[in-house]
């Protein structure tokens, strides 16, 4: 810490704070007193606040209160993400450790992977309908590929000397997997899970926008039909905040799982 940096800390907060304040002031002026932007294009801050209150109190909006929508969306992302982790990480480990499996699975993987997970949405609706099943499937699909690839890369990048050393010291294959390979690949696995989680949110919102009965994306469809820009903004902010919260949760798990990298 040089003295120069010490002095710049309060300056930093002043600049950041005034930039955010300026944005809010501009938002207020442009949508309110100046009347430059109609509420059909973007809501005034107070409109957004009213929408938020309307959404929180029963009967809520779009067939449920905010808590129900959040619960539904979060549940889908979490289950889909956990399913993808539970299937993708073991497959990645297997592909990383066994060349035959790698040779067998990898080409199929490379064949399907370029198709954007979002592009599966119409087909999954055709297969499973508009309910939970279709959404879980696309979320799983979106999160699966990053989980597999990063686990695989993590295993492949472990120093061969470490593996050989473990073998020389008589590690059983179980010890090799749990004490050498998995810990060695963990940082890369978590990088993959972070990408997976982001993909989950993106695909969930898309799937809910295409068709759903509940959830934050459902609020957005109903609100755009009602031309309620305040409600759309509220739903967008909720999606963003939930994404931040979940990624913070993952960071917490990562710290716990990889204590040596803290």
């Amino acid at each position, binding site marked *: 810490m040089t003295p120069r940096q010490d002095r710049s800390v309060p300056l930093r907060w002043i600049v950041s704070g005034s930039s955010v304040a300026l944005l809010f002031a501009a938002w207020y002026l442009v949508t309110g007193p100046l009347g430059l932007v109609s509420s059909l294009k973007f809501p005034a801050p107070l409109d957004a606040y009213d929408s938020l209150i309307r959404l929180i109190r029963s009967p809520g909006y779009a067939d449920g209160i905010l808590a129900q929508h959040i619960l539904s969306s979060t549940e889908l992302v979490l289950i889909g993400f956990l399913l993808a982790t539970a299937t993708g990480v073991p497959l990645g480990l297997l592909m990383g450790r066994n060349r035959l499996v790698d040779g067998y699975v990898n080409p*199929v993987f490379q064949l399907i992977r370029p198709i*954007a997970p*979002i592009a599966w949405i*119409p087909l999954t609706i055709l297969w499973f309908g508009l309910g939970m099943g279709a959404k879980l499937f696309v979320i799983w699909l979106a999160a699966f590929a990053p989980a597999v690839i990063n686990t695989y890369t993590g295993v492949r990048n472990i120093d061969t000397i470490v593996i050989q050393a473990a073998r020389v010291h008589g590690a059983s294959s179980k010890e090799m997997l749990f004490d050498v390979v998995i810990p060695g690949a963990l940082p890369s696995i978590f990088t993959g899970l972070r990408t997976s989680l982001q993909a989950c949110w993106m695909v969930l919102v*898309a799937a809910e926008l295409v068709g759903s009965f509940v959830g934050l994306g459902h609020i957005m469809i109903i609100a755009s039909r009602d031309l309620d*820009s305040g409600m759309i903004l509220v739903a*967008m902010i909720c*999606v963003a905040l939930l994404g931040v919260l979940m990624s913070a949760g993952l960071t917490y798990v990562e710290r716990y799982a990889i204590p040596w990298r803290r």
Partner: protein
Amino acid sequence: MVAGIRGAMPVLGIATFFGAWTLATSLKLAPPTFLPSPLAVLHSMVELTQIPYAGSTLQQHLMASLEKFGISFAAAVLLGVPFGLIMGRSNLMKWALSPLFEGFRFVPPIAWVPFAIFWFGTGFLAPTLVIFAGAFAPCVINSYRGAQLIERHLIEASQTLGAGRWRTFTEILLPAALTHIVAGVRVGAGFGWQSLIGAELIVGSTGLGYMIVQAGSNLQPAIVISGMITIGIAGASIDYLMRAIQHGVRRKWAH
């Protein structure tokens, strides 16, 4: 012998995939309204290039998607790269802009669809905002990192030699950060393409995303899968092009 088995595995893998697909459809395990056979998909793909579906032929849908992608991806690169470079070189700009950028970054691009409809209507331009939202952030972040990693003495040397702000920017900053920038642009292209498809599923009247969502609601899985394959090939080609540019830049500029 072992090497032979290893060499045969990829062929076996692909064969299993298509074999299982064909078997499932020919044994009627999956009805054709659910999963068409690979041949039926191929047939519908060829047919789509001649007979218009949902208003256009397959190649017209592809061109419509690529056009939207091109417009907003170019906008995202042209705005995102300078934005990131400026944030990387000036603390004041970084402090002022980063809270706004961080807030923007956490909104999934697809969540911009409702506002895209409000601002641009349901026509051709509606998905452009969404693509822009997908491609902008990676361009900014990588340019920012690239600009931060530039050695200070390079900039000081150029300034001593009398280069103004603009020349420092175009002749020192941009080339030195180029490998980082191109990496970000490549990630941005991937996100942008995904976001485009997502946006077209929801709004619009042309494009591959529109085509597959129409075919989905008309219960025509062969057309859906043809569209998905086209999306995959186009996405892979965009990434291939980006990778070629990345290699070219790396060869020319890496020291």
